[in-house]
């Protein structure tokens, strides 16, 4: 939390000159792009995720069981990686257009029309390919857990299957859709590396420009704060959307009859779902495998193990600590019902929306001075100065990750704790068991799977995260993501393909787990 406060504080001393200059030149366009990108990605994710969720949860689509989890796979793909692969693929000089030119004997861009991938639209589509699973996942769960009787009631009141879907099921899934869209928008707005490949300038671009180009830390912070305002808007909008809807389903819609699709519907639905799986996961992974096969060698493999270990190490720390914090917060809130209790969780949710680099800046701004105090104190007592034990070590990275990803852990754990009946809080006391042992004996066992899911989600995000590690890492410390990033920035992804595949494989872990857990229920 503290780093965000420090960041907001630093933005107070903003120089108006630079701001006026930016405002009169590029800032309006950046803001337009930011809003445009946010809205477009949200819309596209909606168009991809909600129909997919509806098809999987409501119909008898062929291979529905497989598609159910296949559609979640794109989550395992780091957006910057997919962005690079796609821009490379559909670029004028990319293989697709080259083949087309060779086939049709075209010679210059004037001979034919081909969509330009490096546009706002292109960026939005590709980002949506990777992020739509959030919408899909949450909407599908919402649809599947809806009270069966509500749908039955609507049928008896004269709705056809279709009408009852649109009038009851979808409106009831609205909170879930809103949450997922908020997540998608936050990820999009905070993204930098991805939009960079698309040559789309957004507010994050402006943040980097002012900070690195103009060297104006305060203005950069101010811009980051503007970005946070956008996010705040998204979060508030999401919560408004959920207000007044506190319906808990008593009988999940598990055994409902699925809609039988006609042949044409079946074909269209299958094409739609498989297209999403292909675009979001299969195509990128095939491209990566292709590269890996062409370029892999033994030496690379040994280097990979070293960097892989680092990645796993920081991801494990972050996931464990973030989960523990989320757990403590959630349990604390559960047992101390007070008005202010929701605030810490809501604020920590913003962390997710801070671009990694901005967060890293905030970390340095916070821990730098702290380190100084520690060293000064140590010296004052005639000890050897311990050095930068906070800002110059893995500690800073782990801390940054926790700030950034605690929203995920909090969300998952809170959802899990919401499922525990309130009476279970009181039952142990009635059996003479004190609060703390009760938490360990009742709540924790019940939360086991939520804890694991939260841990895995943070773990995967931490494996993928790039900018914060890049800036905060100590000497001789490479992770899979930094290595890939360096190779990408030098247009040599081929040599990092193996590492990229490794990240994706790790990303698959929670998906497989989530899926298995669903099945066993």
């Amino acid at each position, binding site marked *: 939390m503290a780093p965000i406060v420090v960041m907001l504080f630093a933005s107070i001393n903003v120089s108006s000159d630079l701001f006026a200059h930016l405002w009169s030149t590029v800032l309006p366009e950046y803001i337009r792009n930011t809003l445009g990108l946010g809205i477009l990605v949200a819309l596209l994710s909606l168009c991809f995720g909600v129909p997919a969720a509806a098809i999987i949860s409501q119909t008898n689509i062929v291979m529905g069981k497989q598609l159910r989890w296949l559609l979640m796979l794109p989550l395992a793909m780091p957006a910057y990686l997919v962005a690079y692969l796609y821009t490379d693929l559909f670029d004028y000089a990319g293989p697709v257009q080259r083949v087309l030119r060779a086939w049709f004997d075209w010679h210059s861009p004037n001979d034919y029309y081909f969509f330009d991938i490096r546009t706002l639209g292109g960026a939005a589509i590709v980002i949506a390919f990777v992020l739509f699973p959030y919408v899909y996942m949450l909407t599908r769960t919402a649809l599947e857990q809806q009270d069966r009787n509500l749908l*039955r009631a609507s049928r*008896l009141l004269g709705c056809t299957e279709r009408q009852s879907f649109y009038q009851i099921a979808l409106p009831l899934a609205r909170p879930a859709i809103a949450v997922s869209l908020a997540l998608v928008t936050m990820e999009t707005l905070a993204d930098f590396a991805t939009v960079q490949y698309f040559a789309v300038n957004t507010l994050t671009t402006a943040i980097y420009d002012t900070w690195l180009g103009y060297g104006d830390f305060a203005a950069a912070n101010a811009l980051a704060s503007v970005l946070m305002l956008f996010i705040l808007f998204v979060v508030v909008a999401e919560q408004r959307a959920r207000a*007044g809807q506190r319906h808990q389903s008593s009988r999940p819609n598990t055994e409902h009859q699925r809609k039988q699709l006609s042949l044409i519907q079946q074909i269209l639905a299958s094409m739609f779902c498989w297209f999403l799986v292909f675009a979001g996961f299969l195509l990128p992974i095939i491209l990566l495998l292709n590269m890996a096969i062409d370029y892999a060698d033994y030496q690379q493999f040994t280097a990979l193990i070293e960097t892989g270990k680092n990645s796993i190490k920081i991801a494990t720390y972050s996931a464990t600590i973030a989960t523990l914090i989320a757990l403590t917060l959630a349990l604390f809130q559960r047992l101390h019902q007070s008005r202010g209790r929701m605030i810490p969780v809501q604020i920590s949710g913003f962390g997710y929306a801070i671009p990694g680099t901005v967060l890293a800046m905030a970390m340095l701004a916070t821990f730098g001075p702290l380190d100084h105090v520690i060293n000064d104190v140590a010296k004052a007592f005639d000890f050897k100065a311990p050095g930068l034990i906070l800002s110059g070590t893995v500690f800073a990275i782990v801390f940054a990750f926790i700030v950034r990803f605690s929203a995920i852990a909090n969300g998952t754990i809170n959802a899990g704790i919401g499922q525990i009946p309130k009476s279970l809080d009181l039952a142990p006391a009635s059996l003479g068991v004190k609060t703390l042992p009760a938490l360990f004996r009742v709540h924790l066992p019940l939360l086991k799977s939520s804890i694991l899911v939260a841990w895995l989600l943070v773990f995967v995000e931490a494996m993928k995260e790039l900018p914060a590690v890049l800036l905060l890492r100590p000497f001789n410390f490479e992770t899979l993501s930094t290595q890939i990033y360096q190779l990408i920035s030098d247009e040599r992804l081929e040599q990092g393909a193996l590492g990229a595949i490794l990240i994706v494989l790790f990303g698959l872990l929670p998906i497989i787990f989530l899926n298995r857990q669903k099945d066993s229920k």
Partner: protein
Amino acid sequence: MTPLITIENLAVELQSKLILSQVDLSLSKGEILGLVGPSGCGKTTLLSTLAGFIGQSTGSIEINTGDKLIKITLDDMLPPEQRNIGMIFQDYALFPHLTVTENICFGLKKITKVEQAQRCEELLTLLELNELAQRYPHQLSGGQQQRVAIARALAPQPSLLLLDEPFSNIDARLRNELMIEIRQLLKRLEITAIFVTHNKDEVFTFADKIAVMHQGQVLQVGAPALVCQQPNSWQVADFLQLGSWLPVMFSATENSLALSSLIGALAPHRIKNIGACKNAVLTNFQLLVKPSDIVLSSHEANNVIIEHIGVTEQGYHYLLSSLEQNTTLAFSQLSFYSQELFMLGAELAIQLKGEHFLLYPT
């Protein structure tokens, strides 16, 4: 008069398990049928099948609305929305995202807005919901939610109303009052209804007819009083808790049959349904014994022991066990009422009196 709904030879199979079989029922317009039976007997499945949520595997359902005949057969299983059936769910299933008015008007798509408003207004007044018209379901109490559910189900003027344990979520003290209120309403509107419950008292208060189900079959249908007087199987009598069970055995004496039990013998003429039992090849039977059928005996030896004492308006209620426990005729939990107070564990001598006993094979 042609029945409003006729169910013939209905069977339902779910995941290759027979849930309902050979169900035949018919109801006239305005009749209220109470469907009772132990949990898992298939009564909710029957409602779901009528509503169209589950398809039958054999049999047919006919609904005669007066203007037209709705036939639901294996070849043409109408979807729920075409059956003109209304339903009130146990948890009311009010749409949480719609207000009371919107919930009530939900099923009114085929009539004009003005008519909709009018119908809604009528129902709001009828169910005294006018004050709550703009509230959302979660802002209402349980009783209020139920009234909204009733208004919503009645709004499209269904020819048949299904109620799935409608009173189970209502405070016991209010329940009776509410049941009478709703029964009067249904009667006034001449609505045919089938309601499901596991509480026999609800049936006696609410229904014109009772149907007792057991293991997917309807055992007996009829007026509640008739069914109570002449239950056609021990399951019916047992579910309706008409008395306690006394194991008996046919014992052939010289030239006539007699029934023996641990509390004395019983001549066959004292058994009303002896004809139905004579043909049975079984030797073990259960005799339905109402508390009033038992009296203290002065000449018999002690034959029972008091296991439990309860206090009721009719005096003390004793549960008795036979002293002898090692025979097939041993019993426990035999109900007996007396104004006299005995000690727990006291031994008594009792005998049977009365003429109209009912006997069932086990």
